[in-house]
């Protein structure tokens, strides 16, 4: 039987890994030389003087990809408990998922037809 105690080693790994990360960041901070100049701390723009800052709006496409990702991700998560029980549910479960997937595919074809995923 699976209990929350199974996750204790994961917590251990987290402690070990974050300990290593913090230690390394701290040590490099101490070891490295510090010769800071104003120019060195400017954002790198291939030697040209930097223009404004990088907080700028970007293509809506990325936003759309993120929204669709959330939707698809939830649908995929729905399929995991189904896949685990697939052999027990047999034909009934398969038809159930077929209906779910057909609705999913309708949405998917709509997205592609409307060119929502077209990148120039």
């Amino acid at each position, binding site marked *: 039987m*699976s209990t929350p105690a199974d996750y204790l080693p994961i917590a251990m790994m987290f402690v070990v890994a974050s300990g290593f990360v913090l230690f390394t960041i701290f040590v490099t901070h101490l070891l490295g030389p510090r010769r800071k100049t104003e120019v060195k701390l400017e954002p790198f723009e291939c030697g040209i003087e930097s223009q404004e800052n990088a907080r700028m709006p970007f293509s809506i496409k990325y936003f759309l990809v993120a*929204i669709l*990702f959330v939707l698809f991700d939830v649908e995929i998560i729905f399929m*995991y*408990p189904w896949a685990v029980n697939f052999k027990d549910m047999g034909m009934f479960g398969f038809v159930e998922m077929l209906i779910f997937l057909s*609705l999913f595919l309708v949405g998917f074809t709509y997205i592609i037809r409307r060119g*929502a995923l077209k990148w120039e």
Partner: protein
Amino acid sequence: MTLPIFYILAMLSVFCALMVVVARKPVHSVLYLIACFFTIAGHYLMLNAQFLFAVHIIVYAGAIMVLFLFVIMLLNLNLESEPRKSVIARVAAVSTAGLLFLVLLAAVKSAEPVILDTSASGVGLVRHVGLKLYNEYMMPFEVSALLFLTAMVGAVKLGRKEATHS
């Protein structure tokens, strides 16, 4: 052994939730919210709801918050451009939130604690969740597919409208 873990997790949850509101930069707020989701996933784990734990991390912390972060990065958020709210709006916000808090507090106070040994039955494990979901709750499951369909159509419409504007 479990009690201190519970208290530590609960304190972290409350701290992160407070920092979401208090943090000055929107991106920091989002990151505190992600941390808050992790502590809540920890609470699910304490209840042996392992599937819910994984889903909470994948969907909330790993997908929805990516979208949030994208939106906040997409909006042109320089610190100077953050709009100042009027005093009335602030008072209204604080009082509504305070009232909601009181209602929740009252609800929690009158609630009967239920002791359920979830570890013995394995209620929260994937297999059990799947059996319930795909037999008893078949209809809601199929209806949720319709919901996803409408959400997809909505997202595409929204994206196209925005694209033609700019």
